[in-house]
């Protein structure tokens, strides 16, 4: 799961990674005004930053990050930023923070590296811009260092951190501080089960301190069991999930909303992805990706079907099941139960069932004789039928 900036900074703060003075997350222009008034008039800040809290990059370019030297400026910026659409994410929350004096901007991140199956530290003296761009135009300016297993176990040695920032050509007067920050950043990455902790820009302030002016953090959802479920990061209005995606998430169903009209429900991410492909190749468009998961029970099937059918764009549903750990009779019972639970619905369900206990499943469906269910023998036939029915509907 991705955190927004102010959450990332909270996480940094509790792990000893230096960040600017704490700001306030606001949901209205009035809240922004109150926060700006406090920082500027009471605390003596020269200005505040008003920053959109969305889980996507490119906020600055989209007008989502503004400098406000007065309370009135903060109000005006807040009015423009709240409700703004940034790459499909609506801004519901802005973060107001006392502005920092920026002398220089750098880049620093720790991320999981799939290729080497470990962690990678990326560091550059050129920050505040897209690191991919720096990597293209001036690759020497980007230092990449793999973390060794011993460093992962015992913590990143300070001398290694110092080597990294020295190699990245950080000015001498900030190297010690930047090294300390990197050691803390790596410890935070491990302690919080992050897969990405990125600071862009990392800044040197006018008075020579090194702090994280931004924070991009991705946490590993699979590690939620050892972090109280990561419940502390779930904040209403931040995720901007599609309402159906949010409902699916709360029920533990893997669902991604797409823009077509053929509902898709299958078991196993690969098979569902392949189902989207086959629907498209038959001239249709999938309305969603839904993986009921391994060992789907009748109840999970019924829940999933209800979810897919509640999308008003769905004109037909392709249920594509290849049983492995999932058993055919459970799937069939789920379909029967769902049709009973949901009452009458106009869409047809095209069911293709193979694998573990598929014959038993097919028998159950046949005996139930449901008017809304069409059975097809192969994935290709079922895709063609689902597309045809969607076009007719």
């Amino acid at each position, binding site marked *: 799961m991705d955190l927004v900036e102010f959450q990332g900074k909270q996480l940094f703060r509790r792990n000893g990674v230096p960040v600017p003075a704490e700001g306030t997350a606001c949901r209205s222009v009035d809240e922004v005004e109150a926060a700006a008034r406090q920082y500027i008039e009471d605390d003596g800040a020269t200005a505040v930053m008003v920053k959109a809290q969305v889980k996507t*990059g490119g906020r600055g370019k989209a007008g989502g990050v503004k400098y406000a030297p007065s309370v009135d400026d903060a109000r005006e910026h807040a009015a423009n930023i709240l409700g703004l659409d940034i790459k499909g994410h609506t801004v519901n929350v802005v973060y107001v923070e006392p502005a920092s004096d920026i002398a220089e901007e750098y880049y620093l991140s720790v991320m*999981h590296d*799939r*290729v080497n*199956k*470990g*962690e990678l530290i990326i560091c550059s003296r050129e920050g505040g811009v*897209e690191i*991919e761009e720096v990597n293209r135009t001036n690759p020497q300016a980007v230092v990449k260092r793999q973390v060794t*297993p011993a460093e*992962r176990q015992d913590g990143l040695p300070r001398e290694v951190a110092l080597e990294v920032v020295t190699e990245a050509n950080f000015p001498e007067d900030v190297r010690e501080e930047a090294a300390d920050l990197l050691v803390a950043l790596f410890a935070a990455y*491990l302690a919080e*089960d992050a*897969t990405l902790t990125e600071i862009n820009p990392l800044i040197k302030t006018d008075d020579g301190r090194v702090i994280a002016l931004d924070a991009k953090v991705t946490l*590993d959802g*699979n*590690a939620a*069991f*050892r972090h109280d479920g990561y419940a502390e990061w779930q904040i209403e209005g931040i995720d901007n999930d599609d309402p159906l995606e949010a409902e699916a998430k709360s029920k533990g169903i*893997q669902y*991604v909303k*797409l823009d077509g009209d053929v509902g898709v429900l*299958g*078991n*196993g*991410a*690969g*098979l*569902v*992805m*392949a189902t*989207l*492909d*086959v*629907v*498209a*190749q038959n001239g249709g468009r*999938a309305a969603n*990706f839904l*993986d009921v998961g*391994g*060992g789907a029970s009748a109840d999970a099937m019924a829940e999933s079907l209800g979810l897919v059918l509640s999308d008003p764009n769905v004109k037909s549903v392709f249920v594509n099941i*290849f*049983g*492995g*750990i999932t058993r055919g009779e459970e799937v069939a019972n789920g379909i029967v139960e769902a049709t009973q639970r949901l009452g009458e619905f106009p869409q047809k369900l095209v069911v293709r069932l*193979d*694998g*573990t206990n598929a014959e038993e499943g097919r028998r159950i469906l046949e005996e139930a004789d449901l008017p809304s269910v069409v059975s097809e023998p*192969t*994935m*290709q036939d079922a895709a063609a039928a689902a597309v045809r029915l969607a076009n007719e509907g």
Partner: protein
Amino acid sequence: MSIFIDENTKVVVQGIGSQGTFHAKRNQAYGTSIVAGTHPKKSGTTWEELDVPVFATVKEAVTEAGANTSMVMVPAPFTKDAILEAYEAGVQTIVAVTEGVPVHDMTEVYDTVVRRGGVRLIGPNCPGLISPGKSNVGIIPADITMPGKVGLVSRSGTLTYQIMHELAQAGIGISTCVGIGGDPVIGTQFLDVIQAFAQDPDTEAIAFVGEIGGSEEQKAGEWIRDNIPDTPVVGYIAGFEAPEGKQMGHAGAIVKEGGPGGESAAEKKEILEGYGISVAMNPSEAAQLMIERLDS
């Protein structure tokens, strides 16, 4: 022959709950030699459904029952320790079916067990592997397979079944099918399996199922071009319709926004075809391409 498992495979099951029991029983019915289960509190009893002993530790299963392979079916929070225990007990092949294992856990496991330990780890979050007629370790439904000469490797469980099923209907059998799993950190990589198939005299052709995200398929493709250009190799990359930046189920299945490129299905297809590999747009076409390549 086959790769990784055969008629000498002796399996200990770690995690003898309802799922573990269901699938181990099915493996046993297929002819897989399941020699023990482990459970810290049920040591000394008999695993009724399979009629084999239950030990407290994997070590005992190795020394007393001769286990050389472990099937890990414990819940995700305990998977790291289970794999490490099997490794320390001297098990040669570890098949971790469990899904939802944290990345940091697997990073540590990969380093200890695979990189430094040199042990064969398959998974986690995988359907396991089957050598038709010899052994089945994991959750692959055996009744859709038959022995033959195509080696199959896949990142996706159900999609593997789909292709195997379509090949079987065309009368094409399998030497070994390995489901390596779709997570960012897994023990055995695409390329490892393809290299093992290249060494296996009974594997004459290779089919693989890839996915969006990562670069394992490209790496394997390069090796195929350089080392086994005459072997028929057919692939399918799932996710032509997957939108950028959205995770499609598998933790690893995501085309990154602003990523390095080559992670989408279309890009992977193009790269692999440049290496002389036939890449299909869907599972049926993959089976069809394999039939054509074997006939020619």
